[in-house]
């Protein structure tokens, strides 16, 4: 009998050790540093990017919009993109989940300057933990190299404020950003970092099977960093491709439908080889 209990405990310990990869809300478009503007395809997927693992079914987002600014002295234009969303099924290496796509028309994406894509998803119920997760996500694009509002806050409940252009990273550069909650820095916050290890296939709405790297151990799948006393993180990007940063529970909202809510801030950056 005792042996049976020991065995069950052992099984439980093994099971607890396995789920190492983290949830990441993706706002993905293949090219973010464009020479010329034009029609832009975007996919919204809630998944585990390093392993192209389990994809969670998203509900209709609360908000999806774009902020465009041409030059630092230019005016910020806001475009509501929610009406452009269409449901799709995204296929990971282990399952399929409900996701969304949008085709942003040329008329709103052709000008020079910075574009910030902002997603406020509907809270997702995570049954295993009996909590809700809401990852407020930003992805940046630039046309023609003319900067705009990349370093300005978007006024979100919680968000990352980059100090390095997120669309102009060479591999090996150090990314720095400040975590804000209600516009104020968040000190000592837990931040998960993941590499998009399987390239998204825009036509098939799926991750490609080939992995770009192999993690020697689970801690390398989801890396952990903390914000400093002023809410900053720095992270040197070791490989070309997409990197996601997720600050856990940094938002001011802590409860949804009577359950705990983890309101997270996510930002994506893309590095390219020299």
């Amino acid at each position: 009998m005792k042996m049976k209990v020991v065995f069950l405990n052992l099984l439980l310990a093994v099971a607890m050790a396995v789920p190492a990869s983290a949830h990441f809300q993706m706002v993905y478009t293949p090219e973010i540093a464009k020479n010329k503007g034009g029609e832009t395809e975007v996919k919204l997927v809630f998944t585990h990017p390093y392993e192209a693992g389990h994809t969670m079914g998203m509900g209709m987002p609360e908000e999806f919009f774009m902020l465009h600014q041409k030059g630092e002295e230019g005016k910020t234009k806001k475009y509501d993109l929610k009406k452009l969303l269409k449901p799709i099924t995204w296929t990971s290496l282990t399952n399929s989940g409900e996701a969304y796509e949008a085709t942003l028309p040329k008329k709103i994406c052709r000008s020079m300057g910075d574009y910030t894509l902002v997603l406020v998803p509907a809270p997702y119920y995570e049954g295993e933990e009996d909590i809700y997760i809401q990852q407020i996500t930003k992805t940046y694009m630039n046309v023609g190299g003319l900067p705009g509002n990349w370093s300005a806050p978007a006024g979100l409940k919680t968000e990352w404020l980059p100090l390095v252009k997120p669309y102009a990273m060479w591999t090996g550069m150090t990314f720095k950003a400040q975590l804000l909650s209600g516009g104020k820095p968040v000190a000592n916050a837990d931040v998960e970092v993941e590499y998009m290890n399987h390239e998204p296939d825009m036509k098939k709405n799926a991750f490609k099977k080939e992995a770009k790297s192999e993690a020697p151990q689970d801690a390398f799948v989801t890396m952990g960093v903390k914000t400093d006393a002023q809410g900053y993180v720095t992270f040197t990007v070791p490989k070309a491709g997409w990197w996601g940063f997720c600050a856990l529970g940094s938002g001011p909202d802590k409860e949804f439908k009577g359950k705990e809510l983890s309101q997270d801030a996510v930002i994506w950056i893309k590095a390219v080889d020299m």
Partner: protein
Amino acid sequence: MKKIFTKLVVTGGLIALSATAALAHSPLCSCFDNGDGTVLCEGGFSDGSSASGVKMYVRDDSGAVVLKGAMNENSEFEFNKPAGHYTVTFDAGEGHSIEIDGSDIVE
């Protein structure tokens, strides 16, 4: 004497600093065909500064200026598309000029 020397060094330093700032930003200009017989050009500098007031020239195949103007307060310059081959010049001074071939300006 010492005072004059200090003044000279400070002035020299300032000239060097302003020269660096001028070289560090590069001019940027992009044009697209609006599809209604007009062309819109946008400009700026790599440090995010405005191109308002920058001179703009449109030249025909022989190099003759057929239109001239300047970037407006929004760093934009719109003009009627000339017939035949043309080029657009964004002229922000020596080393800060960009020429765009009309055949590269599409909708």
